[in-house]
């Protein structure tokens, strides 16, 4: 490969880093962010936003959603098995404890139009954008 006059090894390193990031994005088993719980967000053309939250076994009484401005906060808790001593465990892989996830959705949210369901361990939140103010022509009085 012919070297460009302004070739810099750091540029190559950065390019490699970008390529690696893309590679890991495609292998989507590992969450892109280490925050729990992981979320998927979809914006629809008609102004709705769907947030899917993967939080199996969350205690329904502890699940709490808050919307303010463009920010959605999800709180909940996975409670450990009651009355089972640590020494009884032969295998322990499931994360436990309280969790909080806050995300900015990029649009102002209509706080009156938030709906949520929790089914099969997936919390599905439907939100609606506040419609943009429509331009208004102002008549000028003489």
């Amino acid at each position, binding site marked *: 490969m012919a070297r460009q006059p302004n070739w810099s090894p750091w540029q190559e390193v950065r390019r490699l880093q970008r390529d690696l990031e893309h590679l890991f994005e495609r292998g989507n088993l590992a969450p892109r962010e280490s925050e729990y719980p*992981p979320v*998927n967000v*979809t914006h629809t053309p008609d102004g709705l936003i769907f947030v899917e939250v993967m939080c*199996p076994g969350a205690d329904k009484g502890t699940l709490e959603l808050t919307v303010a401005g463009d920010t959605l906060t999800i709180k909940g808790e996975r409670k450990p098995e009651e009355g089972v001593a640590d020494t*009884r465990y032969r*295998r322990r*892989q499931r994360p436990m404890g309280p969790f909080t996830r806050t995300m900015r959705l990029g649009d102002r949210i209509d706080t009156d139009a938030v709906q949520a*369901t929790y089914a099969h361990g997936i919390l599905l939140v439907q939100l609606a954008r506040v419609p943009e103010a429509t331009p208004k022509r102002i008549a000028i009085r003489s």
Partner: protein
Amino acid sequence: MPTGPHDPGGSRLRDDEDARTVIPATDVFETETGFTIVADMPGVAPERLEVTTEGDALTIRGRVTRASRPPDHREFELADYAQTFTLTDDVDPARIRAALKDGVLRITVPKSATIQPRRIEIDPA
């Protein structure tokens, strides 16, 4: 009621014959009376879950249904689940019970009656 982030008017869901299969995160603990297996299987509806035993193998299998359109921002992708456990010979496969709630499968595997402490009646002389 939200129904999901699907294409408006488009095909809603697809059955994932080609979905990847992963091993679910699992806890296993032992009590006096048996073993309990708890597995995270988010996205699996009860009718798409299978728990089977064959010989000393206990197999769990769950299939997910995913949205037809990929999300704009993705941090997880639902995949089918499969895992096989080997039953020890001190358990009673006939009395295994399983329940699925909020994407969490819970299986109780009782120990055989012969293993559990038992009081022996004394025959009258």
